[in-house]
């Protein structure tokens, strides 16, 4: 849900007039500093950190016109949110740096066995390789029946963990796909 921010009138004249001898500084004083979020796009989101799940507003640069690549310029609490009512903790308040961060991963990385460094690779390569590994491991370690000849239909050589940092929908998809693959080693942060 995006709301267009109200357009705040700029106060005073933007171009301040300085008389040559600096006698009158009043116009400069009367000019309010521009509000940095007055023309940003607002997106309602939820803080990804703790389980209070505070509402946050992400302010992105630009009005989403075709030629704009938005970046986050500010994050603030969502004052409408009944729990946090606009407030945030020091982690939520620094969310901008979580999104815009020079340490973010931007390329798939691959580390062959025994290598001491990462290799930048293409998506197609990693997806193909992973799919092959998944299938091979499943085929190799799939157990249809246990030692007592009971149907178990499970993949014992593969584990999947994760989810708590992601959406419920992603969690569901993870459970759905992993159970279909027969994975029994399935767990997440809730146990930790």
């Amino acid at each position, binding site marked *: 849900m995006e709301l267009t921010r109200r357009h705040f009138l700029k106060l005073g004249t933007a171009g301040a007039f300085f008389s040559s001898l600096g006698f009158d500084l009043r116009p400069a*004083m009367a000019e309010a500093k521009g509000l940095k979020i007055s023309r940003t796009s607002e997106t309602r989101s939820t803080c990804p950190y703790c389980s209070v799940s505070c509402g946050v507003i992400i302010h992105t640069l630009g009005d989403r016109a075709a030629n704009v690549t938005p970046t986050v310029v500010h994050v603030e*609490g969502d004052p409408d949110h009944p729990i946090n009512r606009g*407030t945030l903790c020091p982690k939520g308040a620094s969310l*901008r740096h979580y999104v815009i961060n020079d340490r973010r991963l931007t390329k798939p990385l691959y580390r062959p066995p025994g290598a001491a460094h990462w290799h930048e690779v293409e998506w197609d390569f990693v997806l193909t390789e992973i799919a092959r590994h998944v299938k091979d491991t499943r085929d190799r370690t799939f157990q249809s029946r246990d030692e007592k000849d009971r149907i178990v239909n499970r993949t014992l050589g593969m584990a999947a963990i994760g989810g708590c940092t992601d959406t419920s929908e992603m969690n569901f998809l993870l459970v759905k796909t992993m159970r279909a693959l027969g994975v029994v080693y399935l767990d997440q942060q809730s146990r930790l």
Partner: protein
Amino acid sequence: MPLELKALSATNYPTRGIRETPRVCKLIDVSTCIGCKACEVACQEWNDTPVAETYPYTGSYQTMPDLAHNFWNLIKFREAERDGNLHWTMAKYQCMHCEDPGCLRACPAPGAIVQYTNGIVDFVQENCIGCQFCIMGCPFNVPKLSPRSQKVYKCTLCSDRVAVGLEPACIKACPTGCLQFGTKRQMLERALKRVKQLRAQGFSQASVYNPPGVSGTHAIYVLPFGNRPEDYGLPRDPSVPWVVSLWKGPMKTVGSALLLGGVLAAGLHYLKFGPQRVERKD
């Protein structure tokens, strides 16, 4: 809530405009501060004050020993034993926005420090000449010089936000309601109510910190142990340093009078006695 000027540094002519604006105030209820530092981050985030890449460990939970040119809002952590009970006090520290600001009085650059009618004392870096007199004039040791820009910075009470009807960033962020914002009257009322509550809870010394030495401030505190402001990192009886008062007051007058008097005396002397001609004896 448009900003209207009340006072400009180093300016003799009247600056006060005709619009009436409510006087704003920040209330810091120390008894509800959990030291989460949301205000510290909100301040940095809103004001885009970048931080250093290397960080010294202070040996306590406190972020840094003192305010900095790019850190205008600091929670001071102190462990104190009172009546056999351990108290871990956390109190936010920032510009107090004095009604009678020592910084503004000490500043020699016209318009580098302004006071709006709503009570906000703001530094206008475009006009700042970097002389640091404000630092000496401040009884709270708040303004800090940026080594890079050679200008002085401090909390603006988010004048840009307040001007368009938003609350300061720290106030908005504060999760526990320890920080509140409104008119000075409302905040004083609220503070007194809270003091009453605290006294009923056994904090017999609870009081409001609104130091009269600077004619009151636009950031006021509720202190559970109001008799010991030092425990919260606040000065006991802050006032504009007498040197600043003397310097910007009587001394300016007397000095100017003396100088002007000297020039006048010289003129008079010239008129009455004229120059001393050389004797022509030969």
